[in-house]
């Protein structure tokens, strides 16, 4: 094991990790927004748009991210729409993540009993206020474990970004192997880099889950 090689290339990995995190965080935040929008459209049964959302969710969940990225990066330019690698990555991740987030929020919303809405309405709250003060807080706390799982899943999915010419962690590792044949070192650093990103995320997720399960509301 060539430790000098490893030390020398830490900055390269750090830079790549920062890019991975940056694009990942953007994609995840947008996924959450898309997810909430989709689920509200379905919850309130908005005509027509609701069908479009269903088609989107099926399309997104049943195609691999790599294929989605290829479509954005190689397919769209053929139709005259050219977007940067970074935009492709964020849009692709959002396209994938939005449907997963929507499904998680939906299970949360469905777990809230109908009587909760009715008793909120009976106090004179409007539908929007009932959603905001009564339904959403309960739905979110139920959804959080699934949302955390999605976040970790999406961070892992970022490893295909190198396919659209982004200098992410996978890209750097492949690059170093190609240049110096230091396969062991390059791959070891790759694994460690992902662990450094994902372990804290996982630990935080299970902490959150435990808090929600045992602390609940006042127990």
């Amino acid at each position, binding site marked *: 094991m060539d430790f000098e090689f490893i030390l020398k290339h830490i900055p390269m990995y750090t830079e790549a990790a920062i890019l991975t995190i940056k694009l990942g965080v953007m994609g995840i935040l947008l996924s959450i927004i898309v997810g909430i929008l989709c689920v509200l459209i379905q919850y309130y049964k908005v005509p027509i748009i609701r069908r479009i959302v269903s088609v989107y969710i099926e399309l997104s969940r049943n195609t691999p991210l790599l294929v989605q990225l290829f479509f954005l990066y190689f397919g769209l330019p053929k139709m005259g729409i050219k977007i940067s690698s970074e935009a492709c990555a964020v849009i692709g991740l959002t396209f994938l993540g939005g449907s997963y987030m929507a499904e998680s929020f939906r299970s949360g919303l469905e777990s809230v009993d109908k009587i909760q809405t009715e*008793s909120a309405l009976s106090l004179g709250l409007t539908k929007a206020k009932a959603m905001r003060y009564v339904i959403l807080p309960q739905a979110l706390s139920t959804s959080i474990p699934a949302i955390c799982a999605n976040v970790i899943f999406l961070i892992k999915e970022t490893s295909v970004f190198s396919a659209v010419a982004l200098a992410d962690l996978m890209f750097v590792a492949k690059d170093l192997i190609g240049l110096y044949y230091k396969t062991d070192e390059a791959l070891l650093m790759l694994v460690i880099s992902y662990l450094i990103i994902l372990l804290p995320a996982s630990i935080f997720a299970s902490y959150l889950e435990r808090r929600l399960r045992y602390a609940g509301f006042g127990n």
Partner: protein
Amino acid sequence: MEKNEKVLEIRHLSKDYGKGAILKDVSLDIHKGEVVVIIGPSGCGKSTLLRCMNGLESIQGGEILLDGNVITSGKTNWSLVRQKIGMVFQSYDLFPHLTVMDNILLGPLKVQKRDKKEVEKEALTLLKRVGLGEKTKAYPRELSGGQKQRVAIVRALIMHPEIMLFDEVTAALDPEMVREVLDVMLELARAGSTMAIVTHEMQFAEAVADRIVFIDGGEILETGTPEEFFKMPKTERARKFLDTFKF
């Protein structure tokens, strides 16, 4: 007790879910300060009638008036109407993510935009009145069924409704907790509240009611004072229904 001012008027109300009528041509007036108890076999439409009064069910015919204004015209501002019609449900419907105090404050603060200090003070007074002055910071999960229903009553009362609807509020309770909830309702009735109560507790109905309304098959078959109804029911179906409570 009975005054002539009508709070709620139901005129020729009909309701169906698509397969058969749930309510057929139901007419009923509830006067200020009056306690109307609606009884009848399961599935007779009594809960549906109560839910119609609060706009939780759509209706197919007839109309409902609150203080002389039609509230079933389709242009109703339900938020405004529901502030005047308090409701307590059968299942424990407290908001589990809020403390007892926050459950009670939600309506006054978010709907009526009242002053927080003033409402908190009133909430505490009401909670003490139902014997739960110590529980302001508790979460619903930490309360017994009877305590939850008493909080739900306070949560409805604090909106200062003109009429309170009670939909089988003791039906899901353990027997030993029924009394504490009924006592609160009895006290409200004696204090002159206008109430419409759906219940299966016959002795309570007899004690609390100014008027008994007997519903079967979606129709009002009989109305009368508790003495009339329980001592000498006029219809065969009412007699049969009352017999099911005797051993």
